[in-house]
């Protein structure tokens, strides 16, 4: 009898072991944010998740975790428009959409599109433009869905290596794809890309994957190997250690941005295009660092 039971247990374990490839646990993203605005005098944090003209959001919903960054185009300042208003309102609207469940986890482009058209429903006459990058983790299916419009972007790091990354969308040098609302009459003169030209991708993620979502202030100043070096220091999935790592990445990028002799990725790209420059690129820096972990309430 005993051997029958133990035989039964063995069989059961083997079968369950085979079945557990399809993990029924929900995943979640533990996310920390950090950033620096370009203009020291304005102070580092304006209102919550805004760093200079950049804005970001982190939102949780029953079915998904959603992150987003938006880089406000600074050129509007010359025309009397505050560039952070557009990016900030865009991100806040995305956050609200997610919290109220008005989105489909597999369609981050849908989040962008709906959010953009909601901006047009605001009584306040918003003007400005920004890039946008939205990352959605579907808890149950363990898939990461992303949409990127412009030169912000994300990296997915697994086992110390970059396994996924976003592509930059540029019209020409230093002119990324951007969502915009133009003043009346200037629609022809202002670059305005539709939300559906965003690049989207979907892929599976595993527990322990690190996702770094950031604006070009980070990627233009820190090459991949430096970022990976910092990420190696990430010990566990505690919020505190993620926060610490995010801060150290952002701080390092901030320092490098003002180093006139450093050959930043931005300078390298400029040289490749015939512009003889050196040094970092002073810019607003926004970093969202996430780790895929198990979902706890």
């Amino acid at each position, binding site marked *: 009898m005993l051997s029958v*039971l133990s035989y*039964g247990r063995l069989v*059961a374990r083997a079968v369950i072991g085979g079945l557990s490839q399809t993990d029924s646990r929900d995943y979640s993203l533990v996310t920390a944010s950090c950033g620096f605005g370009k203009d020291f005098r304005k102070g580092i944090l304006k209102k919550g998740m805004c760093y200079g003209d950049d804005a970001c959001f982190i939102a949780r919903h029953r079915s998904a975790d959603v992150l987003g960054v938006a880089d406000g185009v600074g050129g509007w300042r010359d025309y009397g428009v505050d560039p952070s208003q557009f990016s900030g309102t865009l991100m806040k609207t995305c956050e609200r959409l997610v919290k109220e469940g008005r989105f489909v986890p597999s369609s981050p482009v849908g989040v962008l599109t709906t959010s953009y058209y909601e901006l047009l429903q605001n*009584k*306040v*006459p918003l003007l400005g433009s920004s890039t946008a990058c939205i990352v959605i983790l579907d808890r149950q299916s363990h898939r990461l869905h992303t949409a990127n419009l412009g030169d912000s972007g994300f990296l997915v790091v697994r086992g110390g290596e970059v396994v996924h990354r976003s592509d930059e969308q540029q019209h020409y040098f230093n002119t990324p794809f951007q969502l915009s609302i133009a003043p009346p009459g200037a629609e022809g003169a202002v670059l305005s890309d539709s939300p559906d030209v965003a690049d989207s991708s979907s892929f599976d993620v595993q527990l322990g994957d690190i996702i770094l979502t950031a604006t070009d202030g980070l990627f233009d100043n820190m090459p991949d190997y430096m970022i990976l070096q910092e990420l190696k220091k990430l010990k566990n999935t505690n919020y505190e250690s993620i926060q610490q790592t995010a801060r150290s990445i952002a701080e390092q990028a901030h320092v490098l941005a003002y180093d006139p002799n450093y050959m930043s990725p931005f300078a390298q790209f400029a040289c490749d295009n015939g512009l003889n420059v050196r040094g970092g690129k002073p810019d607003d820096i926004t970093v969202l660092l996430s780790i895929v972990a198990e979902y706890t309430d």
Partner: protein
Amino acid sequence: MQLAPKFPMLTLLSMFYYICLRRRSRSGTRGEALTSRRAVESGQRAVLPVSVEVEQYAKEVLDFSSHYGSENSMSYTMWNLAGVPNVYPSSGDFTQTAVFRSYGTWWEKCASAPPPFRRTPKGFYSQDYIELGFEEPVYPTAVEVLETYYPGAIVQILACSHNPFSQSPPTDVRWEVLWSGDPTKVLTPQARQFSPNIKHISFPTNLLRLEVNSSLLDYYTELDAVILRGVKERPMLALYKMPVIDISDLSDSEEELSDLGGPFRQGGDGKHQRTGNGYFDKLPYELIQLILSHLTLPDLCRLAQSCKLLYQHCCDPLQYTQLSLQPYWARLSDASLGHLQSRCTLLQRLNLSWTGNRGALTQSGFSSFMKACGLSLVCLELSCCHFLNEACLEVISQTCPGLQELNLSSCDRLHPQAFIHISKLTRLRRLVLYRTKIEQTAILSILTFCIELKHLNLGSCVRIEDYDVVASMMAARCRSLCSLDLWRCRNLTDRGLAELVSGCRMLEELDLGWCPTLQSSTGCFQHLARSLPRLHKLFLTANRTVCDSDIEELAASCPSLQHLDILGTRLVSPASLKKLLQSCPQLHLLDVSFCSQIDMRVVQELCGLFPNVAIKKSFTQ
């Protein structure tokens, strides 16, 4: 051999054993709740003692009569009233709140507004409503409304005995008034928590209805959230006053309305009858009719039961030329409508707005009433009548040939096919289709045949594909058009507008709010001003292209202008507004909210120079 069959069984049992061990229970998070409800949320039905209060935010907005925002949007729409507050305790004009379509008395002053119905009971002030469903039915102890802008509009709070989330169809639906009051105006537009003393009711409820009246307010009222506090166990008699008889003015009305043929003694022989009514016999018939014309409908029905003479008077069809059943929406049923049928043969104006709530009135009851009483009907108000279907509209088109006014505002469950029948009502002068699903073919058909149209409301009719074609048809066929509401018509261009204003020269009111495709650079607004010298009302809300030249043209060409809304443009300067205010002495309403060049200082200066004008400048703090 005998062990073999047991192996699969044991394997199966072991698998179940492991699966059950590994399973983790999930906690659902349906609905919004505060911490005291954790036990309920996780599915453990804890037995709560009587005194524990449950606090809930609204789970879902189920129905409403109007809103400011666009369909499918979350800006200024009624759906924002569900869930936790987004703005409170801040005050201001924010997108995350629930805003109704109108405020003040500006819309009532327009020519497009219908005259009020006679016999409206004094306590009935409601202009708009919203219905909210909550997660858990409770015996309410308090209702708190978080108002974040220009508070004071709520005039009634009602609770329903039916659970809107249950699968079973509604039976024996009761609505109880928790609180009612007069419309008020709070001195400052700042946010407040409105928590009136509510009546205690005998049934648990998770469906509340708020009715509002914004007529005293200076701007749109905005609501952020509603909190329902209550207990799950029925409160004990000793603690709460339980009325022995549920007496309220309205609760008797259904009995009265249905009890008409009812128990009622005949006076003995004819001789008795002649002298039985005292001095009433000496009064002329017309005088008694005049006295009765001041009674509200329930009183009229009660009076009918007092004696034969008054029964005769109260059933006289001349008392029922105007019939407004909207104040009694909660209690009107097929039976009551049926009982009124015999008295309503001379009916000219009928208001059934808001009735038919949760199956009380059905399309068959309505149809038979229309067939009996529709012949002389001139005005029919059917706002928010969700029982209507295509068959009802067909009946209306067949039985009311002389119909001049039809209001189907917010009948958003009506199938698009149903609207075709309206084109048979060729005498129509006023047609309201706000927030309906009417489509291109139907509206073009209506415009082709209803050439006497004077007032047309196509606000938020999102299913109409090409407004330029519609405008062109209006210009061709409806030349006596006096007021036109095209609020949020999404694709009207300068081409359509130009045709409209050249064809419909009698236009006095034009609402083009939130029409994003009209560009001032085409000259369309200047052309409009020049073509419509009689213009009284013009709304160009959130048209970001309105500029100084448009304002100056209005000043030059439209001296009768009374209401103007140019919210949200950056291009209008104080100088052109001054010119406008000087040239238009009858201007009473000017909305310059979110116009960047017009700040509070300019507004105060203009108010000082032109004290008769209400200049509206909204704010987000």
